[in-house]
């Protein structure tokens, strides 16, 4: 069914607990991204060089299976980026095989490409960014179209499988009332489509974990002041709460 020779370009791996999916997880960071978010915390994963030799999927599977004793508390493997959809074929291959081997799978994606749909059956836990509810602003700042993202998220909700929608809150980009109203509208739309126990919203405060890496890559870090104060963060949480949307914190 799949190309046995398919490879994945990976630029980082390691374990973490409960931050990118449930339980203790092995996280792989995949190279390449179709967007250009100025606050990206992994700019080292933005580029993908074609001449690079990736990790063959069968080798990766072997490695993951050897890590089974670490997948406690409902843990497993999480693929994140870069953007995993830039390597959709190989991703489909590894996710399928992991499902066959009963390893819990999670994926973190910007959800901006249609290929996500064919991966969904093999993703036990989907974490999707929803960065801005306005098409124009989204395109202008990160280079993504809104429509495929919304379409992917709705499809996921309709499938009834777990979905965590993450909003990276960035001052000056998506923390104004207009954007918040836009988020509310879409969150409501999603909530009406599916069961509440498999859909969550998370608001992540802007951080600058990536700044040093941008500098290391020789790239300019252009975000001037993206920080959200605790006061504003609490106001935003309250804003959503009053509108019937409970955000979680992983």
């Amino acid at each position, binding site marked *: 069914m799949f190309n046995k020779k398919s490879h994945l370009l990976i630029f980082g*791996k390691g*374990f973490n607990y409960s931050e990118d999916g449930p339980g*203790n997880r092995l996280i792989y960071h995949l190279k390449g991204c179709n967007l250009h978010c100025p606050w990206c915390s992994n700019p080292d994963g933005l580029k993908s060089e074609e001449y690079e030799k990736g990790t063959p999927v069968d080798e990766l599977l072997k490695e993951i299976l*050897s*890590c089974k*004793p670490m*997948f*406690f508390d409902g843990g497993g493997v999480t693929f994140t980026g870069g953007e995993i959809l830039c390597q959709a074929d190989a991703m489909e291959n590894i996710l399928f095989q992991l499902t066959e081997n009963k390893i819990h799978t999670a994926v973190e994606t910007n959800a901006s490409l249609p290929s996500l749909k064919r991966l969904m059956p093999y993703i036990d836990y989907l974490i999707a960014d929803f960065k801005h509810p306005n098409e124009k602003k989204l395109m202008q700042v990160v280079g993504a179209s809104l429509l495929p993202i919304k379409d992917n998220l709705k499809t996921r909700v309709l499938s009834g499988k777990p979905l965590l929608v993450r909003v990276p809150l960035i001052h000056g980009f998506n923390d104004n009332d207009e954007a918040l109203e836009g988020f509310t509208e879409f969150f409501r739309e999603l909530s009406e489509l599916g069961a509440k126990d498999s859909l969550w919203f998370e608001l992540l405060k802007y951080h600058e974990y990536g700044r040093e890496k941008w500098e290391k890559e020789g790239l300019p870090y252009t975000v001037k002041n993206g920080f959200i104060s605790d006061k504003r963060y609490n106001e935003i949480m309250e804003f959503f709460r009053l509108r019937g949307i409970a955000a979680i914190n992983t």
Partner: protein
Amino acid sequence: MKGFDCEHITKNAKELFKEERGINRLDGWFLIREANMKYSPALSDLPPEERSAQILKKAILELPLSISDNAIFAGTQRDAFAKSYALINPSFKVETFNGYCDPTAVYGDIEPNEVFTKERIQKVCEFDKHTQYVKQLSAVYKSVEKLTGEVAFFIEQVTGHLIPDMRQAIKYGVRSLISDIDSKIKTANGIKKSNYSAMKTALECVIVLAGRYEQIARENAQSSCAQRKTELLLLADTLKKVPENGADTLYEAIQSFILLWQVMCIEQAPNPFAFSVGNADRIFEPYRAADNLSRNEAASLFKHFLVFFNVADRSWAISQNIIVSGRDISGKDLTNETTYALLDAYYDMNLPQPILSVKLHKNTPDTLYRELGRFFFTPGCLTPSIFNDDSLYEVLHKAGVELEDIPDASIAGCQEPLIMGKDNGNTTNSWLNLGKILELTLNDGISTVTGEKIGGVCEKTDALSALKNVRERFYENAEFFITEMVKAANGASRALSSLPVPFLSTLMGGIETGYDVRDTKHQGTKYNGSGCLIHGNSVVSDSFIAIDRLVSERPEDAQRLLDALKNNFEGEKELREYLLQQPKYGNNIACADDEASVVTDRIADMVRNAENYLGNPFRPDYSTPSTHLLYGYWVGALPNGRKRREMLNYGVDPLNGDANQGLGFRTLSLLKLPFEKMCGGYASHFGIDPKYFRSETLEDKGLDFRNKVIRPLFFNPLNERVSPFYLYVNVTTPEILKKVLENPSKYAPSGIYIMRIHGTFVNFLDLSPAIQQDIMKRLDPASASICC
């Protein structure tokens, strides 16, 4: 004691510590040895144990004593220690370290002055040189000189390194122990009778000491202001009561403990390192509760208790361990209010000694993890060693400890588990260097470091056969060296038995058995064994894997490899690169991890099969308290690609730089080792970058630490083997430490920046440069990265 001024007491504790750090002469131990010289001849007709007790009494009567204006308790350990401990000695050099095998070397650690003249020092030193103990011990060292010269193994006489059980003495008073002895002595005869008589005299020493301090307190009170006068009179009244009689309050219990400890250390002066307190929160909680003291009030008393463990300018009384928390037989958590009070005292004082350890288990409350967060995530703050109590129950029970005794398991020194008051483990009795044994195995018993013929039992063979049969030949040699090591180690214990310790024996079950702790013919403690610290398991296992690959892929290079090892890979860059690229333990690679497990298991069995002076097994202890550096210095190049004189792997950790897949993969490798065989203990260290813990509060970071570090390693529900039971961490990076060294006044304005080296913590700024560099190197960030 309820209702005292916590702030005032805390301020005094901090002043007291400052005062202690200002002391740069330690002469008390010399006076004790001098008293021994003075009184021994007249007491020569007495049996050794009674002689020891009488000399102890003389020393206690003659030692100059004082009570500082900042002290709320009387007592000091200053008279038991010299300025000896190598790793905190600024002049320490890896190249010249030769162990602590010469018991008279300590006389070089006292600076002559007008009072302690060269001649006076020399006279006592000469006397000591002619004692039975020194003569016997020197003969033992001489007999294995060739084998210890380049540290194929090392042996030492073990002083300190025990955990006395003070509970009965504190609760009922020393008088009650004496009356127990009186009833035992009626029916005892021979050696027992003499032991009991010695124990009685030794216990009286602490009453004498309390009396002397009481007198000083009363005298000082006369010339003190009102507030101080009240404090001193309370102290004097307390000393009148304890330790002779039972304590009722926390204040009395601590005072009683301090004086018992003081006499115990004086009895073994100089340098009884690593005596340990045991489960301190359980010892003191009944008194805190009876007294109805708040956490804050208890903490302020404990601050003075902690200062007591710091001796002079560099806190020379190293490796005295206090353990808190843990569980009972049924798995119920035993954390109490005193646990938290002790933690508060530790955090606020941040002293270089005593070491803090915490026993965790699967039912440890979140609150404890939250309270521990501040230790791990405050730069320059001490961090506790962490023990897995669930696993300790399994390991110790399998090693023959009765279940009912295991709640009293605690740590002597760095990481060696012993049963409080019942277990003489002779923990540092022998030291085995697997790296050196492999070097000698591959070079026909000749050192590739010096060319000296050292020894071994393997017959000469051709290069390819030597490599193909390397395991068989290595284990054969290991058996030979272990046998020689054990003979010498037992010899050292026998030499030490000529110095009985009746006072300590009363706190170690001696009143029950009638025998001295150090007796090598009769067992004085319920449990007894001898320790063997095993070095270099993974440099050996990685070498086996590299040899396998070479034999299979390029057998024509067999002789070339052996030559390259002799020449420290000179001109063999390609071959060395090839060896370095072979699978290494610590990366979750099955062949490398399995081999490490086999080597660890087989050597542990060989050590365990060896018998000590009483016929009890040796206890395998895979820890290398900076000796991975010192012993590595004497090991030639090895087939894993390690060059001559480089360090060995630390404890059961991968060789520095060999594990580069991050913490999770390293944890997976660790989980495959046979921890059930390591009843003597083991060492493991993670150097973790604080950036991986992103919670906002120190408390939440404590929980993150549990989730990301502790649970995968200790309480992993998918691990079917016996889980690891020990870990220490430094949450920092080499970059941060470089900054501290470059600008100590900015990063450590108090002059104290605590780091951990093996089981103990130390002031990073007190360390010798070689050890500072080792700490930075061994943080090895790639081996402990967490994915973010």
